[in-house]
């Protein structure tokens, strides 16, 4: 699972990089969304166990079969919904910013400073 953990951390850091460097507000929102995806991937990977099956009591379960950890999957559901909510709210704010400022460049949207 080492590769999964490293990969999800790298996605999170990529999201951070986009939020720091990119000046387009939409791209900043994409960066936040990417970070959420990385966290979801990490969450799912933490629950995974080698050889585990989906946590559903099917009738055709082989003896000795075991489930992967279902708790992180339930947490992921919450996390996904929250990520979608962040995106929705942020995009509606971007729409309003465009109406006010005529631009979605982070360097121009800085009237509140100092």
């Amino acid at each position, binding site marked *: 699972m080492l590769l999964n953990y490293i990969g999800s951390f790298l996605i999170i850091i990529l999201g951070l990089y986009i939020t720091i460097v990119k000046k387009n507000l939409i791209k900043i929102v994409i960066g936040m969304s990417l970070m959420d995806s990385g966290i979801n991937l990490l969450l799912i990977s933490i629950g995974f166990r080698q050889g585990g099956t989906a946590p*559903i009591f099917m009738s055709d379960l082989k003896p000795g079969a075991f489930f992967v950890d279902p708790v992180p999957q339930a947490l992921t*559901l919450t996390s996904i919904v929250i990520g979608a909510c962040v995106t929705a709210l942020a995009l509606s704010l971007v729409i309003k910013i465009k*109406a006010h400022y005529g631009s979605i460049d982070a360097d121009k949207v800085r009237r509140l400073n100092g």
Partner: protein
Amino acid sequence: MKKNIIIKNSIIKSCANITLPIALILGIYVILHGHLSPGGGFQGGVLIAGAVAIVFTAYGYKEVLSLFNAERAKTFEDIGALGYVFLGTLGLIYGYTFCTNVLWHSTPGKLYSSGTIFWMNFAVGYKVLAGLGFLIIMLVSNLYQTSEYEDEEEK
């Protein structure tokens, strides 16, 4: 004023005609079988709310407005949320704590089993489909409004 955000053509329309019923039925199936198969209220609700997006892609904004009533969707979302809270409060009424799984439990594997879980799935699915549908309608309708502000001072 941008009028043609989406180019409507017959391919998209016929594809939408095929996928729309499938999406709706799949959504209902996923909501109803949340405790039996992968899925649940949220996933099914999102599938059904996708219908709004499909209609918008195929037929455009006016068709969306004529098919769906945004205000009513908002009200339905409130009803769904109240339903969830009510199902949670049933636990208090039966004398346990909040969110207790009460009501009847039949054999596991049947559709009407697992007590409140089934109904909670239903309430959440209803809430999510109404809420997300409302959200999509609102975001879409904002694309067709041009509003320029002259940044007035407060008040």
